[in-house]
């Protein structure tokens, strides 16, 4: 069996499934002077998935509710791309399970393990060894649509 390419495993609603909106951009910029040898050359159309997804099978999408991360620029109704294969480090924004709920917070590993809301009205969650929590993955992108 050949390793599947992104196109082989199309699933409706998953961004890697989109054929990619063709946004062909000419590379050459407008400049006075000598013509660039690359002027006629058009690079491959841009695909937003390239920006958001590096590991498709491990990437999931979630929708934000609430304002606990508003000071990090994460608003209610934003869509986050979560890569479960990326190891989360101190300072990363992560998706975690705490008390049976999915939550988005900033991970702090020193001086103690904490999940930090980026909203001064909220208190950090200190994680102890026997707490029921799990770091699901690292948030690798954000999508927001405007009206």
């Amino acid at each position, binding site marked *: 069996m050949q390793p*599947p390419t992104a196109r082989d*495993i199309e699933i*409706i609603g998953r961004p890697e499934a989109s054929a990619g909106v063709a946004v062909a951009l000419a590379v050459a910029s407008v400049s006075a002077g000598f013509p660039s040898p690359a002027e006629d050359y058009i690079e491959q159309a841009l695909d937003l998935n390239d920006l958001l997804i590096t590991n498709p099978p*491990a990437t999931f999408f*979630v*929708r934000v509710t609430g304002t606990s991360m508003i000071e990090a620029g994460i608003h209610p109704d934003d869509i*986050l791309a979560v890569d479960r294969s990326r190891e989360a480090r101190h300072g990363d924004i992560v998706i975690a399970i705490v008390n049976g709920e*999915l939550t988005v917070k900033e991970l702090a590993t020193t001086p103690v393990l904490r999940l930090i809301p980026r909203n001064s009205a909220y208190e950090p969650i200190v994680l102890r060894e026997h707490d029921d929590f799990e770091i*699901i993955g690292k948030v690798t992108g954000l999508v927001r649509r405007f009206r």
Partner: protein
Amino acid sequence: MFALVDCNNFYASCEQLFRPDLRHWPVVVLSNNDGCVVSRSAAAKALGIPMGVPAYQLKEAIVRHGVEVFSSNYALYADISQRVMRVLAELAPEVEIYSIDEAFLDVGGIADLAAFGRRLRATVRQWIGITVAIGMAPTKTLAKLANSGAKRFPATGGVVDLSDRERQRRLLRITPVEEVWGVGRRLSRRLRLMGIDTALDLGARDKGELRRRFSVTLARTAMELDGVPCFGLDEAPPPRKQVISSRSFGERVTSLAAMRQAVCAYTATACEKLRRGRQYARSMSVFLHTSPHAGTAYYGNAAHGSLPAPSGDTRDFHRLAGRLLDAIWKDGHAYVKAGVMLHDCCPMAPMQLSLLGTQGLHASDALMTAVDRINHSGRGQVFWANQGIDPSWTMFRNHLSPAYTTNWNAIPCVR
């Protein structure tokens, strides 16, 4: 060397994936039409809820233990399955997708199998959140047994390397013969009469005798148990003498047009199953009946018909199914169930053609292969128009979870 990777409690695990509140909770998934239990979480198994129990018998478990019940959410399972298969394809040289939650890998040339298995298992768990069991052995039949060993004995950590001959013998000795891949209950009854009780007995038996008294396939299965590979990737012992596709209707069917769509859909499903086992069939039957409990006059009937030559072509069986349905259809009844069965199955490859039927055979195989490949994900993107587009006979799915990974409006929420 082969590995069989099998997802644990696959449907129930998919349901728990985006419901962290249910991670340690008893969860069951119901079959089509919310009929009976087809998947159970570990906690549901611990409560003693058996596989296959009808949904209406769960009421007490729901009230007493809060068991969470889901309808089959195929869009979700297909997506998670694709992700698992894709990770396997990245980490292993060759993959045969065997079912929605099982795959055989060719792991020849890997030095430390146990370490490879543990890495594979950890990766699938971390990347996707699904737990798998892995059995590895020199043949597919042994890998299948190694896999069930990995599931049954927690001390294995979900990974069993059965390349050692002595370990093979120890496992085969405690494996009843009916648990061997491709040996059904009927066949095992005959084997037990001959004193073949365990997998070890079967593997030790004279292969010529097995071939003469049973089939080439059983002889090959016995050789596989003995450590001699007979099935390559994409090869399996064809266990089927017939293929069945049948369901209870969500709403009673009273019109011939709706019934025709249903029967055509079941026929398409059965034919796909047939081809997946690399088989042709020669004849089929169609059956339907009303409810035996409804109080009104009961009517049930079945019709059987044959093709001029064995076929794997859905179109041949559609034509036949239409004629068979016409023969048994009676107006004025409210039908609760219908189905089709394909009989006289034979291997696809070498076969005799009827004098009339040689033309177009190649094109038919190519077309069916193309259709199956498109539909492989189980989401039915290509289907025969005679199945209908918005069928009223489709099933109940009263406990359906959201399409967490395949619909932007249904993705999980985080706080």
